[in-house]
Structure formats: C-alpha cells, structure tokens
C-alpha cells in the first residue's frame, strides 16, 4: 500500500509538471488573468458601491468558465497523451497497479486545478481589495464633505475568507468534472469523443437544478423515478454556485453546514466516478 501511495505521488508529480508545460494551460491562465485584469475598465462606468459586485461576478464567472474548460480538456489530453505516446505501456509494464496509475493522473490534475484556481483567485482578491480601498477612500471623502448621507456600505465590502471558501468549492467542482472526464476517457477511444461527452455531462450537471425544481410537477411515476435517478447519477453543480453569497455579506449567510455538505457531496462524487473509471480501465486493452 505504501509503495502504491509513493507511485501515485510520483505519477501525480509528473502529470502536474507535464500539464503546466502545456500551452493550453498557460493560454487559459493568461486569458483568465487578462479577463480579471480587464475588470479595471468597470471604473469607466458609474456602478457606485455595486462596482465590487460586478468585478467579483466577472472574475468568478471567468474562473468557472475557463476552469471548466481546463478540467475537461487537460484531463482528456493528459490521459490520451499517455495512451497515444505509449508511455502508459511503459508505465503499466512496471509493477504499477492500474488504479494507482489512474489515481496518480487524477491527483496531478487536481494539483493543476488548485494552481489554476489559486492563481486566478489571488489576482481577483488582490484586485478587489485594491479597488475596495479606493472606493472606501472616495466615499469617505464624499461623506466628510457631506455630499453622501452614509459612508461606503459594509454590505458591499469583500470578504476575503468567503472568496477563499468559494475558490475551494470551485476547485472541488473542477475535480468532480475531472473525475467525470477520466471516467469517460477510461472507456472511450479518442480524445475528441471524451471532450465532447464530458462537456455534455457538464451541461447536464450545470442545468439539472431545472429538473430538481420541477420534480413534483412530473405526473408519471416512471418519469419521476427516471428523473430522480438521473438527478442522483449526475452531480448538481448549482450546489457549488454560492460565490456571491460567500464573497459579500448576505442577509442570510450560507451556513457552515451547507458548505460542509457541498464538500462532502463533491468528495463522494469524486470517489464514485474514480472508482467507476478504475473498474472500466482495468479491463481496457492498452
């Protein structure tokens, strides 16, 4: 077991090193950073104290959008890179169990997503903090000059702790997406098929709250049962979409138990999809 853990960490390390050298990763990171940086143009509009919310929405949206693309495409590329270049053949001819190989690949991608989310969240946090200081000064001067009845409202102030918690949830969501992609890759023959199917599954996961909302309206017990089953089969990504509620003070704050439940939910799906991927990969002919 210890030797398998050592192998997993070695495979993860190399997967990560390979991934950060990929142009696609660097391109998405640069694009994400540029997107967050471009939020400075919001200063040209007069959003008032709401400006920080616009910047945060814009930045968080960018992290979700590019992060989802990266989680799917990088997982598919790194998996099929090993198959097509036959480095998987060299690896699996060694005393490496197939589950350890897959776990190493997934862990490498998890690290990659951590770096991606960490970089973009750090930039977004720094940018929000910088702009917040400017706005606080600006509104304070207006307040002192009696041109404003109140100072900069506390409800518009950024909660860095909430931003970090949101980053953690998004990272977990990307890891679930990577595990789904790995499952698809474990039985599919091409990179393209894996990417397309994984994007479809991502859309289902993203939109399945519609089915949840209409649960009770379905008359047929069969269809209700089917939609219930599909609702369990695919994770509901809306559970992770609590960015604004965490980053800014909310009237009803997100309870810690809900965040813990979302983390448990994500970890459970990662474990299930990875187990299914291992089962499928075990019988795959390399």
């Amino acid at each position, binding site marked *: 077991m210890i030797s398998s853990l050592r192998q997993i960490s070695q495979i993860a390390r190399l997967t990560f090193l390979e991934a950060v050298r990929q142009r696609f990763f660097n391109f998405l990171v640069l694009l994400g950073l540029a997107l967050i940086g471009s939020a400075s143009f919001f200063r040209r509009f007069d959003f008032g104290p709401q400006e920080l919310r616009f910047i945060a929405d814009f930045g968080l949206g960018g992290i979700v959008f590019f992060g989802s693309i990266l989680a799917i495409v990088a997982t598919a590329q790194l998996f099929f890179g090993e198959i097509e270049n036959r480095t998987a053949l060299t690896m699996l001819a*060694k005393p490496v169990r197939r589950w350890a190989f897959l776990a190493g690949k997934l862990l490498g991608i998890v690290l990659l997503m951590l770096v991606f989310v960490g970089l973009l969240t750090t930039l977004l946090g720094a940018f929000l903090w910088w702009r917040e200081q400017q706005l606080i000064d600006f509104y304070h001067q207006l307040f002192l000059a009696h041109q404003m009845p109140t100072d900069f409202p506390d409800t518009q102030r950024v909660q860095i702790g909430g931003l970090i918690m949101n980053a953690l949830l998004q990272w977990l969501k990307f890891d679930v997406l990577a595990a789904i992609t790995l499952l698809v890759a474990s039985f599919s023959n091409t990179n393209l098929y894996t990417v397309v199917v994984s994007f479809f599954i991502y859309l289902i996961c993203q939109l399945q709250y519609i089915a949840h909302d209409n649960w009770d309206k379905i008359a047929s017990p069969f269809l209700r049962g089917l939609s219930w089953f599909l609702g369990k089969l695919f994770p509901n990504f809306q559970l992770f979409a609590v960015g604004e509620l965490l980053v800014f003070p909310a009237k009803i704050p997100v309870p810690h138990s809900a965040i813990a439940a979302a983390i448990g939910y994500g970890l459970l799906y990662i474990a299930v999809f990875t187990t299914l991927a291992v089962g499928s990969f075990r019988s795959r002919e390399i």
Partner: protein
Amino acid sequence: MAVPAIKITNLTKDFRLGLRGVKLRAVDNLSFEVADNHVFGLLGPNGSGKSTTMKVILGLLEPTIGQCEIFGLRSDSVEARRLVGYLPESPYFYRFLTGRELVDYYASICNVPRNERAKRVADVIELVGLTAAADRRVGTYSKGMLQRIGLAQAVVHDPRLVILDEPTAGVDPIGSEAISELIIELKRRGKTVLLCSHLLAQVEGVCDDLAILNQGHLVAAGSVGELLRRDGQSNLVVENFPAAAKVEIEAVLARHGAKLRHIDEARVALDRLFLEKIGAADTHSKETQ
C-alpha cells in the same frame, strides 16, 4: 528442473471488433518456454501475433484461453512485473525530463530504495553509454539515444527478465551494434532477454533460441543452431583455393559417397563491412585531427 523465465501454455487471444463484436484471433493455441538466462528471439511478419504475445507476457492483455507465467508467477500479477523490464518499440518519454531524471523517475516507480537510487541510476546510464548526455533533456536525444535511455529505464530495477520490442527500429548500424553488445552484456549479468526484432542478422547474432510466429501460430521454435543447420551439409572455408584443386576434391568426395554442391566466394556480411569501414574512417579522422 529450473523454472523457465517465461512459460506460455495454449495461449489464445481474440479481439472483438466493431459493434457486432466480430472476433479476430490474434494468437492461436501458442505454447513455448523461454529458459532462464537465455536470449530468446520472437520473430514473425507484421500481424503475426508477436506484439499480442508480448503484451500478454507483460500483463497488459488478458489471454482469452491459456496462461502465461513469468518465473512461475501469473504474468498479470504485480509480483511478476517486478521481475520484468520492458523497452517498447519506438519509445516515447517525457521530453522535459533529463535522461537521469527519467531513469530516476522509473526507478522510484519500481520502488528502488531511495538510498540506492542515485547509484543504480548512474550505473545503468553508464551501462547504456549515456553518461555524457545524462543531464540533457530527453527531447534533444537522437533515436539511438532514446532506445538506450529506454533500455536504461527497463533495467534500472534490476529485473530478471528484459523484454525488448524492436530495440533497433530506426537505429543506424552502429547504434544497432551497441544494442547487440548490451544484450550480450545483460545475458552475461544473468538476465533473460526476450528480443522481438525484424533485424534477423541481429537475432541470429545474439539469440540462443527463437520462435517464429505466423498468423498467430507457432511455425518454428528451438535453438538458433538447430534451426539454422542444414542437415547433411557442411561448409569448408579455404584460403587461396586453386581452380585445379576442384576436380581432385570432387574425386575425393565421390570416393566417400559425398558430392560438392557449389563453391561460393566467401563474403562478409554487409553490416559487418559497414561497421569496419565506419570504424576505420573514425580512426583515420581522429588521427588526422
């Protein structure tokens, strides 16, 4: 009796093709053994089932029928793979690693103890003659160097059985010769080598035994000496052979009930000639520098 390095018994492997699952039989009822500390050549045309057999030996494919053992262990077990080193055909490695980092990576994957790893890595890099290039990135290596670093990663965990799939594919005769010497060195160190190659001269030069496959069937197996011997015929190598002697020799042979079949001019093999000439040219260029 010593446990054979590889024992394949009634191996059959079918592949299902397409949605209808049409069956393609890649290997059909194959049985052979590879003795410990022998160099064994596995030959056959493309599509003869060599790669499939090799993948079954490596535990990468499950047999449809039959079994495969490595030193008495099931070939698909992790324990068996600890005893095996493998060099794939036209190997591709992580280009951003240096040769030393690559071999070290595979050593750690094979659980070579940390305190032995640096020495073991240096030793195998020296064995394959890449010490000078060990700290260069693999992406800058020539094809021959890739084969040699591939061989280094295959033997870094000191396996008892080394499987080489087309180790000389795309390599020039000098590189080929170096790989042949490495195979002989591996045998000297007590390893068993399974060699799959289209370079028949190399197989003949280094292998003790061989098996020939065709369309999934074993068509010949045995020691190289036995298989290549022409029963009832011998060669005489004569220096300064006078034409007049031919008649007398024929008469002598006829008296003994034998017959002279033909007289050929002795020839050197083309790869030997190439190596001699290149070696001489290299020596000359070193002398004139």
